[in-house]
């Protein structure tokens, strides 16, 4: 169990968070609440996501809001009554791959994108059992499954101006009319023959849809692309490697640290032409600060994993960019893992908040990184304010706050052809894409994460377009303590956990804070509600399959609060089950086989959407 700090009142001096921006304004949610269902839908269809994100009754983007807090202030479900929560309705997706990402609720309709074949369902929430309103099948190529590194997942859709935006695995972004399910536009962005896929959830800001590619394990050159939300035409594209003009680095680029300054670092920090196949894909989460008008996103690992094939810092991979959403110009960059040694992608979500630090209010972003450090970074300048390990870490010695650089540990560095043992955290990191939540009420981050170490052997690998470009043999094992996962309530100011729940398996579901109750799921299939303040388990429900989905909260047309989550084991670790891998090979599933052999005996595959409410039923 986690540490329970006594000084709760002291550190609840959270001055403001992105969420509060919305709270200060006249809440539209009141009107929405009172309006009839059709009116809600109408208002939803007209509204800009910038406004809709503030409405706790709806959930219009996968991270709930631009600040990526996954916090809902809906208070109907309380620690007291959560025990009476029951299933309202369910829906089987018929897909047996891993179900990541949350459903959306816009007005009276719920939208759900399944993993490949990426069918978009719309459910009519006004009717009992929420029947399917329409469904849209993009018919993505089956071959795309062969170049999706970590199960054929989809991390959700985004809503804006009457359209649902989402990506199909074979590299298409599409805009679907939210009301009718009719296709507005489809843009093909990637080439699966080069190993490029798309799995991330788009973000819509100011009439632009931001999407990034996946395929860091295939020698893909990563990018973030802004598409015009109305036409699907590319507005700009920022690569994560290569010359400054490709990375959209210009005069406005003012990184905080020296090592990020210089001409064409995206070339000179790579050997030869390795930057062309250097990874740095953008498959994770995006945040946006409307006030500073800055878009934040992370770049994934450099490829291949074997670091000896790419000496140098490998800019601009494994770091985070702040860009102008309009032009794409980079404002600052910070590299969490220069010359990444362990596949420590920098794509984890960045939660934006204003924290009271050192006597002042700092506009920060918080990121629980794969490398085991929880970063608090000034989101205007890119300065690292603190970087604290939130799991046992032996592969780095933290961050030198002066130079901003991660301090590597020599003996844990890869030596091609040799097994380097017990690297903590492992390649999936202390925390992978599974998003955390932040409660402005408690000031705590709720982090679903892993406790995984690994043995790593770098091997020479050929770049063969469309085949994996990894160059490592990895075997994961449970970290210190023997439990493979944690659910941690983290106090970013004190830099330590408030409380912590040990889980047998990595906690690969997202977190949700619904007022005072925190929700998350486990890979065994338990959907759990815990007290936001104490971490006490309040309620749990055993779903049909392991949960790696992201829970969300919404207010139904009936005015009641609902919690929805998808069960369906899969994803990188869950592929052991969903892809029926053989754990006798310890590297099965890129390293999970050795550690998750028991998962096959614990749960089975099968995607199902669960919607809960107090009392259950409709």
């Amino acid at each position, binding site marked *: 169990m986690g540490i329970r700090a006594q000084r709760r009142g002291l550190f609840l001096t959270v001055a403001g968070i992105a969420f509060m921006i919305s709270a200060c304004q006249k809440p539209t949610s009141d009107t929405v609440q009172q309006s009839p269902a059709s009116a809600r839908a109408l208002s939803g269809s007209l509204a800009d996501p910038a406004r809709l994100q503030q409405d706790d009754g709806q959930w219009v983007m996968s991270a709930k809001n631009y600040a990526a807090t996954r916090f809902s202030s809906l208070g109907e479900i309380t620690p007291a009554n959560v025990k009476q929560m029951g299933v309202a309705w369910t829906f089987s997706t018929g897909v047996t791959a891993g179900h990541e990402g949350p459903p959306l609720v816009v007005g009276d309709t719920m939208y759900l994108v399944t993993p490949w074949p990426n069918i978009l369902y719309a459910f009519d929430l006004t009717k009992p059992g929420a029947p399917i309103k329409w469904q849209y099948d993009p018919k993505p190529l*089956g*071959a*795309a*499954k*062969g*170049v*999706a*590194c970590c199960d054929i997942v989809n991390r959700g859709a985004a809503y804006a101006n009457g359209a649902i935006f989402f990506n199909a695995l074979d590299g298409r972004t599409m805009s679907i009319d939210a009301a009718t399910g009719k296709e507005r536009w489809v843009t093909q962005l990637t080439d699966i023959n080069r190993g490029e896929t798309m799995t991330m959830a788009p973000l819509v800001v100011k009439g632009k849809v931001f999407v990034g590619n996946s395929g860091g*394990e295939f020698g893909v050159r990563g990018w973030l692309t802004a598409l015009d939300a109305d036409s699907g035409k590319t507005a700009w594209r920022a690569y994560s490697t290569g010359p400054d003009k490709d990375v959209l680095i210009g005069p406005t680029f003012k990184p905080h640290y020296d090592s990020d300054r210089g001409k064409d670092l995206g070339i000179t920090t790579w050997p030869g032409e390795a930057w062309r196949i250097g990874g740095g894909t953008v498959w994770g989460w995006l945040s946006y600060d409307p006030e500073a008008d800055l878009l934040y996103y992370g770049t994934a690992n450099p490829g291949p994993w074997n670091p000896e094939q790419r000496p140098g810092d490998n800019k601009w991979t494994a770091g985070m960019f702040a860009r102008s959403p309009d032009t794409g110009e980079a404002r600052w960059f910070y590299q969490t893992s220069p010359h990444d040694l362990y596949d420590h992608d920098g794509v984890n979500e960045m939660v934006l908040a204003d924290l009271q630090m050192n006597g002042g209010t700092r506009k920060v972003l918080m990121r629980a990184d794969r490398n085991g450090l929880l970063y608090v970074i000034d989101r205007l300048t890119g300065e690292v304010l603190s970087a604290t390990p939130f799991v046992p870490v032996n592969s780095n010695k933290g961050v030198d706050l002066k130079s901003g650089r991660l301090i590597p540990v020599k003996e844990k560095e890869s030596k091609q*052809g040799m*097994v380097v043992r017990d690297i903590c955290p492992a390649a999936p990191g202390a925390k992978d894409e599974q998003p955390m939540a932040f409660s402005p009420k408690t000031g705590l981050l709720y982090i679903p994460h892993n406790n995984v170490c690994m*043995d790593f*052997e770098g*091997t020479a*690998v*050929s770049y*063969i377009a*469309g*085949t*994996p*470009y*990894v160059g490592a*043999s990895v*075997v994961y094992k449970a970290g210190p303590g023997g439990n493979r996962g944690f659910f941690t309530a983290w106090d970013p100011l004190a830099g330590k956990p408030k409380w912590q729940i040990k889980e047998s398996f990595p906690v690969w579901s997202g977190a949700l804070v619904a007022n005072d109750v925190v929700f998350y799921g486990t890979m065994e299939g338990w959907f759990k509600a815990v007290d936001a303040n104490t971490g006490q388990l309040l309620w749990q429900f055993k779903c049909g399959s392991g949960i790696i989905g992201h829970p969300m909260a919404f207010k139904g047309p009936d005015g009641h609060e609902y919690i929805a989550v998808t069960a369906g084991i899969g994803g990188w670790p869950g*592929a052991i089950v969903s*892809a*029926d*891998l*053989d*754990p*006798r*090979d*310890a*590297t*099965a*599933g*890129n390293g999970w*086989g*050795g550690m998750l052999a028991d998962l096959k005996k614990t749960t089975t595959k099968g995607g199902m959407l669960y919607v809960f409410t107090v009392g259950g039923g409709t």
Partner: protein
Amino acid sequence: MGRFTFALVCTMAATLGCERETRRYTELPAAANRSTAVRLTTLQPGSPQPISNVQSPYQYNAYGLAEGKRLYAAYNCAGCHGVAGGGAIGPALMDDKWIYGSHADQIFSSISQGRPDGMPSFGGHIPDQQIWQLVGYVQSLAGLVSQDAATSRNDDQIVGKPENRIEGTKQIQTGHR
């Protein structure tokens, strides 16, 4: 000139004649036309023909299997199917489930032609000879080749049993999952 032409014509006639008069009752050696009789199912109309039991020319050949193992790594097969065949992006190769069949010619076709759910088609990108070597090695992952000829462990991280210690799988299931 005329004499030369005459000689040329005679020579050509002779060569053609030899070729023409050759009565090849046995067509090419089995290895050459293996891929034609590939079946992915046992279900056939009428009385079923036996499933072809064409074997990889390297089934009992240690060198061919070792080459297969080298190529399995060199062509990034390991990236999808696991270092020891446990699977990752692609299905496991060490178990008893073979979506497109475990017979040598079926595996050959899978590698050469590719398969719709993500298996790239390697035909034309690597010589057939190497595909056969890969076939032999892939079979060894499930214990389908002679243990005497199968490869042993690599000088690398050990993530599963070496192929020469894998007991043959008894029941091979074939079919879509």
